[in-house]
């Protein structure tokens, strides 16, 4: 058996350039799959990691997340909030309100979203993950203070806004007490283009009692699902609607993220799979050429006693060995690329992404390479084995 390997190995070595190209073809396909999967797992882990820190939180919205965008169906009322306070297991409820407002700075007016809520909640929600570049966060009694996002400070107006500068929001004067850092991928939407006020100030400035967002904190994380359901029921009852309130636990949020990632991974792997198909077509072509070139040699082997099966296994062994080497190289290269991509991804998004190389992925990569080698080598090997010795011997 070892001798079959040696024989196959000699033949591969004889056609170095061609063998190397075939190996490269497989290596590229496998490297793509391995690196994409590893980076994918790393990203998923990084993002869900951030989310698990808020595991005891339920976010309640008067609308639905549909296909990646939020469809608002109305707003909550104070009655909704007091009803929620009666549900068992709830540690804390805080509300937020937001709306567009006209903001003026040094004679330029721009519409900007103003967000008001419980200062402690907002602090753990936004200030802790994103951080402040200048100044300080809001205090409960900051009646006329505001904290602005990075884009508000730097992009929306003609001049850069700093702490102690004065803004006019819907004709009311406010003082900037703090400026946010630029938010990373997860937070930039919520933070960069917004202005933050206390709940009281926001309600006044926006002239509204509408509650656009409720955050509920529970005592027991295991209870979260049950409590979320009850929240939805009670609010829906209040409004006489069926599908109005949407209470999401962190658990379901993490699940949602997981699903999204699987879809993205699926697409990327689909692309890598196409690369593999191309590689396997390459192998089949290479093997066919090899068989054609060695027609004479095959005839000689049959003349000296080789059975059809001997010829078949010889060629199959060759294509398997080539693709196996390609698979191993692909895995190694894939891991290296994964680490590089994670590094770049971390830098670009501000998240700490570390590629996660799972053993199943490596084993899978090698297995796929081997299968590709056997499948694409089969037709040429069969052709070789069926050659008539007479034709073959005469060919030379």
């Amino acid at each position, binding site marked *: 058996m*070892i*001798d079959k390997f040696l*024989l196959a190995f*000699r*033949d591969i070595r*004889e056609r170095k350039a061609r063998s190397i190209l075939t190996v490269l073809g497989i290596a590229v396909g496998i490297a793509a799959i391995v690196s994409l999967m590893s980076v994918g797992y790393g990203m998923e882990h990084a993002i869900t990691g951030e989310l698990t820190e808020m595991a005891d939180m339920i976010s309640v919205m008067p609308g639905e997340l549909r296909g990646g965008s939020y469809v608002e169906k109305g707003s909550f009322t104070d009655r909704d909030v007091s009803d929620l306070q009666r549900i068992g297991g709830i540690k804390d409820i805080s509300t937020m309100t937001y709306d567009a407002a006209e903001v003026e700075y040094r004679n330029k007016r721009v519409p900007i979203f103003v967000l008001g809520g419980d200062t402690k909640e907002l602090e753990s929600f936004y200030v802790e993950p994103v951080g402040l570049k200048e100044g300080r966060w809001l205090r409960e009694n900051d009646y006329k203070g505001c904290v602005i996002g990075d884009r508000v400070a730097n992009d929306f107006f003609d001049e850069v806004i700093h702490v102690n500068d004065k803004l006019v929001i819907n004709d009311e004067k406010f003082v900037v007490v703090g400026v946010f850092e630029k938010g990373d991928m997860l937070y930039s939407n919520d933070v960069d283009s917004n202005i933050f006020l206390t709940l009281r100030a926001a309600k006044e400035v926006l002239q509204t009692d509408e509650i656009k967002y409720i955050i509920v904190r529970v005592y027991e994380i295991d209870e979260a699902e049950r409590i979320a359901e009850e929240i939805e029921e009670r609010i829906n009852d209040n409004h006489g609607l069926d599908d109005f309130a949407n209470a999401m636990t962190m658990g379901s949020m993490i699940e949602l993220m997981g699903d999204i990632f699987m879809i993205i991974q699926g697409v990327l792997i689909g692309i890598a799979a196409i690369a593999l198909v191309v590689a396997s077509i390459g192998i089949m072509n290479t093997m066919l050429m090899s068989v054609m070139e060695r027609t*004479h*040699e095959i005839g*000689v*082997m*049959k*003349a*000296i*006693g*080789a*059975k*059809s*099966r*001997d010829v078949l296994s010889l060629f199959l062994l060759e294509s398997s060995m080539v693709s196996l080497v390609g698979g191993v190289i692909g895995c190694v290269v894939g891991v290296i690329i994964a680490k590089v991509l994670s590094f770049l991804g971390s830098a670009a998004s501000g998240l700490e992404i570390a590629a996660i190389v799972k053993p199943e992925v490596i084993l899978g990569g090698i297995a796929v390479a081997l299968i590709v080698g056997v499948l694409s080598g089969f037709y040429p090997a069969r052709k070789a084995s069926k050659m*008539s*010795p*007479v034709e073959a*011997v005469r060919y*030379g």
Partner: protein
Amino acid sequence: MIHTENLSKTYRMGEVEVQALRDVNLEIKDSEFIAIIGPSGSGKSTLLNLLGCLDKPTSGAVFIDGIDTGKLSENGLAEIRRKKIGFIFQQFNLIHTLNALENVALPMFFAGVGREARLKRAEEQLVKVGLGDRIYHKPSEMSGGEQQRVAIARALSNDPAIIIGDEPTGNVDTETGNAIMDILEGLNREGRTIIVVTHDAEIAARAARTKGMRDGKVLD
């Protein structure tokens, strides 16, 4: 013993049918040394291929030790080739990625003989044909005569009863050709049946019996 009964072979070359052999009836006894001589196109190579079980008849039969080769499967033919027949070709037909030792061991490899036994016997064979000091050389590193001797050693690999040579001296000079015929005579003395095809009358003369061929027929 080998004999043929009304052996015929027709080839199809594109649209044209070529009758290479017509009703050949030939008998070769055990341990005979026979040469078949004829011009190009006489069908001698075709006859050789059929006797050597590389191909099957279109009609008629080839019997080797009483077995009708036309009734054998591909694997059956391969087995006869492996066990009873040793081939020598005009162009040597050695595998150029392997050295002399490995080339001679190859038939034994296909016969399932173990590695050590193979290589030992291969070396013995090479010593017998006078190439004991070239066993690790590749065909590209040898002269024509040396390559043909390796081919003979290879043909003897599985200790066949029949040696078939298709113009075995065609690609070498006269002196080497004679040396090769010497080896074949030696093998004949050992009791093997030797069948040689040639267009060279001098080479044919060294066989015990000569048969001529023309246009697919064996002449009396």
